[in-house]
């Protein structure tokens, strides 16, 4: 029988249990795994079970990445949203609606329209409320000299002195704020007029300070204190409000206070283009 044509009967006999070949093999095949190898494998099996038990007690014990990732994501989201809110708030600053305060760098072209409107309002208010004494008005215009004093109090004192001097000489000494009796819009316009380039306003026009009402006394200490306090309040207002207040004072006949306030205004805003407001 050729090896390539095995005995089918012999093979079938082998497949049945009890074959001599199988018995011979089982009698000789006694090798087994070494003890140390068995110990190593069983230890791995034990460790796997313990890891499994720990994971069962703490679901996230082996998955700490998940909650950590969620927490990090939450922190980033909150921080980003907060940042966006803050950024939007500060990104577009709200500008005040009032006109910008005059400064050395400002130009007449930028400030003129606002001041023009404010002056016009004061002018209209004055004209509407007060009868106009044309003579007094024109005289007041000519005599109006605006000289910003160093301080409000000295300016007031200067007022007094100058008035006295002018009374004596009958001439206009210089640029001394005067307080004509009739407060008029034209008078206010001339007072507000000042060089655009800044600097103290030195009146060069024919203006003489001739106080009409000499019986108004500014020598009293109480009046001076009042003027100082009023000046402090005036400086907290915007230029337009301040000028409007001056016009109101004139309309109310408080020429002295108006003049003092105007002097303080000129001191604070020497470059305020008052002239343009006359247009």
């Amino acid at each position, binding site marked *: 029988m050729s*090896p390539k044509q095995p005995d089918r009967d012999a093979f079938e006999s082998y497949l049945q249990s009890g074959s001599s070949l199988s018995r011979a093999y089982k009698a000789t095949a006694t090798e087994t795994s070494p003890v140390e190898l068995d110990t190593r494998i069983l230890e791995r099996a034990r460790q796997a079970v313990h890891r*499994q038990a720990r994971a069962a007690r703490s679901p996230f014990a082996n998955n700490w990445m998940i909650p950590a990732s969620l927490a990090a994501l939450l922190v980033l989201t909150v921080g980003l949203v907060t940042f966006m809110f803050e950024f939007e708030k500060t990104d577009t600053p709200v500008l005040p609606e009032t006109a910008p305060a005059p400064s050395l760098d400002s130009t007449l072209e930028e400030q003129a329209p606002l001041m023009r409107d404010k002056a016009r309002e004061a002018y209209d208010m004055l004209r509407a409320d007060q009868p106009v004494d044309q003579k007094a008005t024109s005289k007041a215009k000519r005599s109006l000299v605006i000289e910003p004093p160093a301080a409000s109090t000295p300016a007031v004192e200067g007022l007094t002195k100058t008035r006295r001097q002018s009374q004596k000489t009958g001439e206009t000494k210089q640029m001394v704020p005067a307080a004509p009796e009739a407060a008029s819009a034209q008078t206010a316009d001339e007072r507000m007029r000042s060089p655009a380039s800044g600097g103290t306003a030195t009146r060069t026009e024919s203006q003489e300070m001739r106080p009409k009402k000499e019986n108004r006394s500014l020598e009293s200490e109480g009046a001076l204190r009042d003027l100082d306090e009023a000046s402090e309040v005036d400086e907290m207002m915007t230029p337009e409000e301040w000028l409007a207040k001056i016009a109101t004072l004139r309309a109310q006949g408080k020429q002295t206070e108006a003049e003092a306030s105007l002097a303080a205004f000129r001191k604070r805003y020497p470059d305020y283009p008052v002239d343009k407001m006359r247009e």
Partner: protein
Amino acid sequence: MHGEKSDEELMLAYGNGDLRAFEIVYERHRGALYRYLLRQCGKAEDAQELFQDVWTNLIRTRERYEVRAKFTTYLFRLAHNRVIDFYRKSANNPTSTSNVVILDGEGDSDIDELPASDREQPQQQAEFRRLGEQLLTAIDQLPAVQREAFLLREEAGFTIEQIAEVTGVNRETAKSRLRYAVAKLKVSIKDEVGS
């Protein structure tokens, strides 16, 4: 209690954290698996390495174990794949003196006739009976695919269908391999008995 359970039940229990169930499964099949690997690798150290790999793989996949087939089929399938990897690694090693044979695939009739690979004889062969020695020598000289078929039959107790499933061939190929192996071994024994 565990001793009466099937291998599949014990493996499922181990997947649920029962260490004792694994110990029983390990004790049942460690010998057969070790000899299966030893007969095919030829060297004890190689067989031990493959042996550890197979059980480590089983431990790692314990939670995903599903009863789709007999546990022994699953176990020896793992071992068969490791042996294939071992043979391929040896084939890429030009210094190896072994005649390596790839055990997978169909149509390996030519491979059946290839001589067995050289292997180191275990030191324990002095203790075997002379017939046993001759039988082991004859097994050692079988072609790899025939040897594997015989070992799966003898060590794992597989049927021809199970041998076909583990080795990835059809039933007729598995049967043919086993038939050739048995015939050669019987001739060897008969010759030894005759002498």
